[in-house]
């Protein structure tokens, strides 16, 4: 009695441990997820109204003040002042224009250093990341929030991700690429099975090392001549598309791919 219980326990342990070792979920390495780029859809008015955002307005006023001071100190001719557009956001381009004009009109040697100083000062002012951030600070905060949200979402979608192997966007990119390359032969019969399955082995850059038609027997079956034409068109599409648009990471996931070319939908409408 004891012996049989003992054996049963041992066998159970063996079976459980074997299952644990070989079960794919248990041994699957954590997949290095590519960083998720979240895109926020904002209304166009949000962009066009940037200068009127509260913080941006303050900054603009500051810049305007400084410009006025600078113009005075440099004793710029009144014409130049007219040309300047005080209402516009001073972008680096504008500054460069000013620089050119001044060098033409004034003594180059003497003013060179002054101009340099001015431009450097302006650059600092304009390219200060804080200020740029201020211009878009609102959206930045929102983006961060959505990023957090979307992070949560994608984590909860992890199950899907493992099952399909590629994320939806990765799959879509690859599909879109092949859609463009595949010239469907138009003469195929409507009432036949028009599915060709091709197994690919890929390099890290997406070039195809090996392609194999899975239902190879059909290629030479009498009465299935159209299948050969279809299979060849699919192979042409793959060759034309090379290198395939594969994800930059996770080579192990997609080094073996199976493409199912199905012309039924297109031809039957």
């Amino acid at each position, binding site marked *: 009695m004891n012996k049989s219980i003992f054996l049963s326990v041992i066998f159970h342990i063996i079976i459980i441990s074997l299952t644990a070792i070989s079960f*794919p979920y248990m041994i699957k390495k954590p997949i290095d997820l590519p960083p998720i780029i979240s895109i926020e859809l904002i209304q166009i008015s949000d962009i066009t109204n940037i200068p009127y955002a509260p913080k941006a307005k303050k900054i603009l006023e500051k810049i305007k003040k400084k410009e006025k001071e600078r113009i005075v100190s440099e004793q710029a001719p009144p014409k130049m002042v007219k040309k300047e557009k005080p209402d516009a956001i001073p972008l680096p381009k504008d500054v460069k224009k000013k620089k050119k004009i001044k060098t033409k009109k004034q003594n180059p040697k003497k003013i060179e250093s002054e101009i340099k100083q001015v431009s450097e000062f302006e650059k600092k002012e304009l390219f200060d990341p804080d200020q740029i951030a201020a211009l878009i600070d609102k959206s930045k905060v929102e983006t961060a929030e959505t990023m957090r949200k979307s992070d949560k979402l994608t984590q909860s979608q992890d199950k899907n991700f493992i099952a399909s192997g590629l994320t939806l966007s990765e799959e879509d990119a690859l599909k879109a690429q092949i*859609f463009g390359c595949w*010239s469907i032969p138009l003469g195929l019969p409507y009432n036949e099975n028009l599915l060709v399955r091709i197994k690919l082995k890929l390099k890290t850059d997406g070039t195809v090392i090996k392609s194999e038609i899975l239902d190879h027997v059909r290629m030479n079956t009498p009465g299935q001549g159209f299948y050969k034409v279809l299979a060849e068109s699919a192979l042409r599409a793959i060759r034309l598309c090379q290198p395939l648009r594969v994800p930059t990471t996770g080579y192990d996931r997609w080094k073996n791919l199976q493409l199912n070319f199905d012309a039924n939908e297109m031809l039957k409408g």
Partner: protein
Amino acid sequence: MKNVLFLIFLLVVFFTKNSFALIEIDITRGNLNPLPVAVSPLYVESKSSEALKELEVGSEIAKIIETNLLRSGLFNPLEKDSFVQKPDIAHLKPRFEDWKLIKAQALITGKVNITNDKLRIEFRLWDILAAKEIMALAFTTVPDNWRRVAHIITDKIYKRLTGEEGYFDTRIIYVAEKGPKNQRIKKLAIMDQDGANTKYLTLGNELVLTPRFNPTNQMVTYMSYFRNLPRVYLLDIETGVQEVVGEFPGMTFAPRFSPDGKKIIMSFAKDGNSDIFTMNLETRVVEKITEHPAIDTSPSYSPDGKYICFNSDRSGYQQIYVMRSDGSNVKRITFGQGIYGTPVWSPRGDLIAFTKMYKSRFYIGVMRADGSGERLLTENYYQEAPSWSPNGRVLIFYRETKSGSQGEGFSATLWSIDLTGYNERLIETLTDASDPSWSSLLSN
């Protein structure tokens, strides 16, 4: 036993793991753009006669192949200026990378020579992306036949790349028209599908209408006048022998052969009523198929010979009907607005082409054999009489222009359109032309 079970268990576990890793992606869409092909001129071997070189048969054949492929709408022949390799070297072994550069996906090369007064034309079809030859054939024939060889080559290429039979080695019979509108001279004419080699079969003394080929393309049936009465005729193209079909006490018109070529089906009109009849060409037995006080006409067999479509005004308007070949089980299949006529069953059997008149405009369209899925392919002031290419992909029909009261500005031309409705092309003829009928493939 235990060991075996254990092994099976292990196998199952590992097998599951492997299949789990493969990612599958469904590609359900592609583009319908024409396939870019390069047709390299066929080179003429140096030992061939001077006459052959002068004719430039090599480049002429390439030109015909190119035109055929272009007109099909499924191929895009590339400009010769961009070709990077000489024809003779390309025929031996193309530099695939170079052809790939000009975006060619298929390449056609070939050579021509004459030995013992026989013209030998060989060609190879290369898959540029797979970097391999996918077809190679040679034809030997009399030198005058080179145009036909060019068409046969196109058919082979077309079939290899699209999966369906071609329609280039075919002929078209039509009514050639000349003269003012009220005094038209109409002759039966026959030509290659690309408009070359026109020959006239009748002199133009009598009016001729609706010529149709038989399945072997040796015989033509058409309507002409006999003792001032429209009658169905039979003409042997080879011998030129004509005969009136049957001894009907009235006018017969709208003839067509049955798919086996043994019968002629036509309309016979008497006392204002017209019904559909068949006549067996071997036994000369006449059979009445429809019996209805309405006008039944334009019969056309399905390719298996089991059904007949025709038009009839039994519902008050001219509509299309389908019945069994013995005349039973008549069913109306068109219910749309307008008047429907000239139904023709596709050689593939899946579609029926027709002419439709609606609000004084004419349309050529197709629908399934049960009347569903009607698609109008082209619309014009006046056009009718569609006829199918042997592969059931293209329709040929004729179009007339509006003319003044004296008939000025009038013209009749042949046009082709494919099932997509986008590839409409004029077929050039020597004179005005109407009532075209497409033959089956000559090389079959």
